[in-house]
């Protein structure tokens, strides 16, 4: 599989997870921490995030993800981080607890 396919898939998984409330934006930022975002997001995207937050007066996870969409998350962030977010959501839902049983 190519990197583009993997990137598109993780973007779709993140998008679906947010749409279906598998995890919330705050859960995403719990893994995509400010350090991670600052280390991997390009300067222009960081600028957009800050500009949007300044315009709104606050920086919330929802607002951050409005700018850093799932596509951009999958494009810039390490997929391991995204997967940790997905796996943690699955663990909270108790999905993977009964796999072995």
């Amino acid at each position, binding site marked *: 599989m190519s990197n583009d396919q993997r990137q598109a898939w993780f973007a779709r998984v993140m998008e679906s997870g947010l749409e279906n*409330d598998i995890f919330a934006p705050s859960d995403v930022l719990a893994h995509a921490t400010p350090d991670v975002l600052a280390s*991997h*997001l390009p300067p222009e995207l960081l600028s957009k995030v800050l500009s949007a937050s300044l315009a709104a007066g606050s920086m919330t996870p929802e607002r951050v993800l409005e700018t850093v969409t799932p596509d951009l998350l999958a494009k810039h962030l390490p997929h391991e981080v995204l997967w*940790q977010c997905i796996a943690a959501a699955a663990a909270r839902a108790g999905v993977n607890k009964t796999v072995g049983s």
Partner: protein
Amino acid sequence: MHRRRRGARRREQDGGLVNLKAFFVATLSSALDLGIAIPDDVIRHVTPDVLAAHLPRPLWARLLTACVGAPRVDAQLVVETIGVPNLCEHVPAPIIWACIEELALRALGGVVIAVPAAMSSSRPNPGQTTQVSRPIPLASPPPPLAAEHKVAAAPVSLGPSIPAPGHEAELDASGRTRVPPGQRFRPSSSGIGRLAAANNARRPQAQATPPAPPPAAELPAERSGTLPRVKRGQTESDFDLETYVGNKDDWKNALAVEDEQLVDWSASDETVTSGDEINRKR
């Protein structure tokens, strides 16, 4: 959120999660569409035994019908006949999740062959998915990805400084080409200044008598303001043209006044050559 999570746990005990199933459908469908997964990956987890235990009879009938009429029975036929939504609807969520987890681990592992071994080792301990996902990415894939991102981030951060010199170079190039015409233009305007400077060159000589030129300049101005209006009350253009001519005449008149002052200069020169100043100096 709390109500939804509690409801999700109850539904999980019942055999499924509404949101989770939609998530599974989107995840598996996109994985198959994007080539992240192949039907064999699904059937590896959703085995015939799992299907026999959880798939409804009508779907079994459809599957059997398709298999009987197909020239070849394979995983693709099974998955396409049942459909991903039906699989996620009837197959227990942990099994679907195990399939997704395998796909993700393989995707994170990239091309490295050691990843499947980690995957197989992670399966016996599926309860800790985060632990499974962490070691594998740290093994091979994250370094290149992180390195790529870091490398990309570094040049981008350096980018702002790079375009700046580029613009500066352009500005310099254009500025250098534009500056000469500007300098040429300035001399053209300064040519008048040079004439004025030439006039001023005379004035410095007359700096000994600075008070004299100002009244001479004031007088022609006053004359030009009064005389043309009195002489001609025609159109404004003619009026202006004549005022210029009148000014030149006034300059001559002004020079005539300066000539009177030049008499003093000559007188001073004469005094220099004469013995009166010598007597004064003495």
